[in-house]
């Protein structure tokens, strides 16, 4: 690798956006593993039961930890229940937001939509912009200049990633966007993926959010205590670390500009608690390849497809042993990425039209 690296433009309105279109990477055909249609038809079936059960457990745990925090407020013992409350509020909401944005968690549409709005508020992602952002993420996964959800543009901002443990990098930006939307405007990037007929919903929801937060802040000031903010607002920050721990495993350090999710997503085996909090998004290759399959069937889908997939990571330890060195190496050499190896039983990779340009 002797050629000089030219920093890429990860914005959706810059040079790399045009290049992605010219290279045929935008809205392209992606690789999909073969699976009998009859089996897929079984796997995509929606059920309300699992998501109602998991949502009930989620809210019961939120109420229980929140109550314990209230009872113990004023002592150091309050830290423990608020740590639990924070993770349930600021991290578990991430996966609920995600699954309900696909409307696959529940069979009943309104249940998906109600939980989606609540989870969006908790995780501090505006429901309308992020639905469209995530739609683009699925169209053009980790395509530079097209995907608004690339987690670590190269060279990676290590300080920014560390700050994201408490949502200190993305959180303030989201607050500014909410305030911008209150004025009836979108960012230039948002203009590229939010259709005109949806934009009024962005402005309406942003104003509702500001009213809710203003009310909570007023109560906190009136009562002379930050306790109200410990329940609404602050947990989006102090409880965000667990979603980052899980979320970073999805794509970081892997190839950009490929048309095969086996090369730019990871499937990681996780413990039952993380799988509950993360709603099975650890099966991330499978989710991206077949987003119609609800979270509660992703483990079954994984069994059907694993002969055609890279070997899954055995857990957090194995995946972070790969991610952390890869990030440090990308700081010095932004062209570096982790090449996923396909097993002999797999069909060949479909790296896409830019693959030749990416090859070391």
């Amino acid at each position, binding site marked *: 690798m002797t050629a000089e690296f030219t920093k890429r433009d990860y914005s959706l309105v810059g040079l790399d956006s045009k290049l992605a279109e010219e290279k045929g990477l935008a*809205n392209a055909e992606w690789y999909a593993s073969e699976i009998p249609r009859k089996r*897929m*038809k079984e796997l*995509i*079936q*929606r059920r309300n039961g699992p998501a109602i059960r998991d949502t009930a457990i989620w809210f019961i745990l939120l109420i229980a930890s929140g109550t314990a925090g209230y009872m113990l407020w004023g002592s150091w013992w309050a830290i423990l229940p608020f740590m639990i409350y924070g993770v349930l509020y600021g991290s578990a909401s991430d996966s609920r937001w995600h699954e309900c944005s*696909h*409307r*696959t968690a529940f069979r009943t*549409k309104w249940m998906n*939509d109600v939980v989606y709005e609540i989870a969006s508020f908790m995780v501090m992602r505006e429901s*309308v912009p992020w*639905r*469209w952002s995530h*739609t683009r993420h*699925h*169209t053009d996964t980790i395509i530079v200049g097209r995907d608004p959800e690339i987690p670590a543009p190269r060279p990676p901002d290590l300080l920014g990633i560390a700050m994201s443990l408490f949502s200190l990098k993305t959180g303030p930006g989201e607050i500014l966007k909410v305030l911008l939307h209150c004025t009836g405007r979108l960012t230039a990037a948002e203009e590229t993926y939010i*259709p005109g*007929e*949806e934009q009024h919903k962005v402005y309406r929801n942003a104003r509702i959010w500001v009213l809710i937060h203003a009310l909570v802040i007023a109560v906190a000031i009136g009562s002379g205590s930050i306790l109200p903010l410990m329940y609404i607002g602050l947990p989006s920050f102090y409880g965000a670390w667990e979603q980052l721990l899980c979320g970073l495993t999805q794509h970081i350090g892997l190839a950009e500009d490929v048309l095969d999710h086996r090369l730019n997503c990871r499937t990681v085996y996780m413990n039952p608690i993380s799988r509950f909090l993360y709603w099975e998004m650890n099966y991330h290759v499978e989710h991206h390849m*077949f*987003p*119609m399959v609800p979270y509660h069937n992703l483990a079954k889908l994984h069994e059907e497809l694993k002969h055609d997939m890279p070997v899954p990571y055995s857990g957090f330890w194995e995946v972070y042993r790969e991610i952390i060195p890869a990030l440090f190496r990308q700081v010095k050499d932004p062209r570096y990425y982790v090449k996923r190896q396909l097993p002999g039983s797999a069909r060949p990779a479909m790296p896409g039209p830019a693959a030749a340009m990416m090859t070391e």
Partner: protein
Amino acid sequence: MENWVQVCQVDDIEAEDVIRFDHGDRTFAIYRSDDDQYYASDGLCTHEEVHLAGGFVMDNIIECPKHNGRFDIATGEAKGAPACIDLRTYPVKIEAGRVVIDIS
């Protein structure tokens, strides 16, 4: 002016399923509901032009395989973001065990 074209045998589509039908330079999605009603619509999702025949029918709703955009198979009505524009639908009839659609 009506323009009826034969698509397939009725049993070529399973109950609660969809197939793709190409005619000239046009592409259609042909549906069979779980109570054996047949419907036809444009074949591409109005969101990002993905073939709907790659999706699945559930409760008389076709779901796009790419972004989960949903449409009523009988009316073509878009059922919410990211599907915001209705699908065009076409009349269907069964003649001598064959599915026939009017693509005019």
